[in-house]
């Protein structure tokens, strides 16, 4: 259960090795936190991430021992989602915050050449999130409380030619997450849609940074504030809300000529 100050007892991160996901978990750990679950495709990498996270949490002498569990989870294997989520809920009890942090950026040129690869990416980013998102939402609805944090992206806000497969999968995900949040209205559970811009992480390694580039810790800070304030949507950094207000309304002819890469 979350306490009166919004401190969280249990956190589950799907895509548990994601840099942004881990930064969010680290930011949400307080002396009230009991369990963090890292649900990831690569459990060895997950175990290493867990050790790092435990070390960060452990540097606070008053912090009760936080248990960090690593479980296997593949976003693409949608048939397994029901069971994975049920097992997590069984072992940790109520889920206070669940973060959907998995995703693949891919390379547009490669997708152009290999539609099957594009389908694979969309399957993870969109279909996988729809699947696990619905399963988690059902758990939260039954609990009568809990927050689902969905990592969307500004790339879905107005899709651009440089990464339109990724962007369109995020556009779909964003719409799904908003609708899911609306459908949870009155249930005690809710969804926070997070729209980061360019974040320096493994996903963007080697790419030229876009304007207003940020880092995982800053995104985590925005998420923590959004949760505290009961927001439905947050942008990271916040200024992107206004940037995209403009970009969204640019005529196509102008948008296509922008140097957005």
């Amino acid at each position, binding site marked *: *259960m*979350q*306490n*009166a*100050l*919004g*401190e969280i*007892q249990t956190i589950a991160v799907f895509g548990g090795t994601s840099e942004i996901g881990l930064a969010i978990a680290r930011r949400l750990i*307080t*002396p*009230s936190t*009991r369990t963090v679950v890292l649900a990831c495709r690569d459990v060895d990498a997950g175990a290493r991430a867990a050790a790092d996270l435990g070390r960060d949490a452990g540097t606070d002498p*008053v912090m*009760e021992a936080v248990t960090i569990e690593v479980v296997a989870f593949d976003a693409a294997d949608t048939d397994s989602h029901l069971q994975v989520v049920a097992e997590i809920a069984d072992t940790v*009890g*109520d889920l206070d915050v669940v973060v959907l942090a998995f995703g693949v950026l891919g390379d547009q040129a490669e997708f152009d050449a290999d539609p099957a690869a594009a389908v694979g990416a969309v399957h993870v980013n969109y279909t996988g999130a729809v699947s696990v998102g619905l399963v988690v939402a059902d758990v939260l*609805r*039954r*609990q*009568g*409380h809990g927050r689902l944090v969905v990592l969307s992206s500004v790339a879905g806000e107005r899709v651009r030619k440089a990464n339109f497969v990724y962007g369109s999968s995020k556009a779909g995900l964003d719409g799904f997450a908003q609708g899911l949040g609306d459908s949870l209205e*009155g*249930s*005690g559970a809710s969804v926070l849609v997070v729209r980061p811009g360019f974040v320096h992480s493994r996903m963007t390694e080697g790419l030229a940074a876009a304007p207003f580039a940020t880092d995982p810790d800053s995104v985590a800070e925005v998420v923590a504030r959004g949760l505290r304030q009961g927001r439905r949507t947050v942008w990271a950094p916040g200024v992107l809300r206004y940037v995209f207000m403009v970009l969204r309304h640019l005529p196509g002819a102008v948008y296509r000529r922008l140097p957005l890469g």
Partner: protein
Amino acid sequence: MSDTLRIVRPSLTTRLTGWGRTAPVVGDVVEVTAADASAVVVDAPGRGVIARGLGRSYGDAAQNAGGQVLRLCDATGGMVLDAQAGTVTVGAGIDIDRLLRVIVPAGFFVPVTPGTRFVTIGGAIASDIHGKNHHVDGSFGRHVRRMSLLLADGSVVEISPDSDAELFWATVGGMGLTGVILDATIALLPIETSRLAVETRRVADLDTLLTLMSEGDHLYRYSVAWIDLMATGASLGRSVLTWGDHARLDQLDDRTAADPLAFGARQLVAVPPLVPTPGVVNRLTAGVFNEFWYWSTPRHRVDEIQTIPAYFHPLDAVGSWNRLYGRRGFVQYQFMVPFGAEGTLRTVVERIATSGASTSLNVLKRFGAANPAPLSFPRAGWTLTLDLPASWRPMADLMHELDRLVLGAGGRHYLSKDAVTTPDSIRRGYPRLPEWQAVQRRVDPNGRWQSDLGRRLELVDPPRSEQT
């Protein structure tokens, strides 16, 4: 559910919080008569049931996210006053306000009253509430002669300090987690008048206050100090101490003496539902309030005659005053430390005073001895209560720091106020928790009684899956 079941209000999916208006969750609220409560409990869904009174506990004690919340419709159960024996038998859904309207004119007072009349008898027992008279009369549980308790299997048992004493004392202070109290017989305090004779003193600092209370409390039935937790330096812990006793008839003036047992509590105003989001309690308003309260009190005033509402329940004159803290609500932090830990108490007061917190409804009280209930909060020592707006960012760190100080001094937190502490600090503060849990498991092997407080603080086991 059976056809004959009379549910007063059907199951409603309702957003619930405690009085502090923090951490909202959704659960099904069912309002039933005492006679029908059993059927509802037996049919309860997987996430269990908890009883709710008037929701005056500040945190998450009387809510059950995703499960059922049972309210006893107060129209049933009735109230039987036995003036000879000085007891009243009363439905657990009835509140102290209604009780006082009947018993005060008959020459009786409740043995213990909290700072509001709007708590039910069920809530009073489940929280084992204490009042300004704890140093003389102990907490509510001491005055409960018997009660009937609805158990998880749907049966109803009679319990008292002589019959299943173990379950009786586990229910006193048991936060509704042993069952639903349906009715109880309470020993009352005979009174000659409905007035209090009050002595008020302005006290310059904490040390003077502790000395005055230690030396003077035993001369009065009621004692409490309002303390300014924003004052620092030489004024640290400056306060207003009030001592009181029920007034005798010969202490009243002629006009009041003509109707010595009159009781007519009224609500004067209510705070509207829409208060600006950050609330109106901040460093400025709280500071001004504290200054005003302190300096408007005479240095020393004796034999002032006050009414029951003015003396015990001043906040009840303002309806829904909890809205003053805005949408994010507020936290009430109440702890006790045993006698001998005055140094810790002083450190805590210093930490709060220098933290920049805006806080004004703070009270310090001296507790008498504990009763046999394993989860009862009061035991001999000092208890401090403070309110803080939940939107105040540094609070989390301050609370956890205070937790450490309190627990280090052998103190504990009051479950009915708690909304921020951890399972570990409850285990440390209540060393008899395992003893209580053994009784709890005996009467609820499948984990039917569930509340957010029980879950958050790991007081009870999760429901057994065969129920879902």
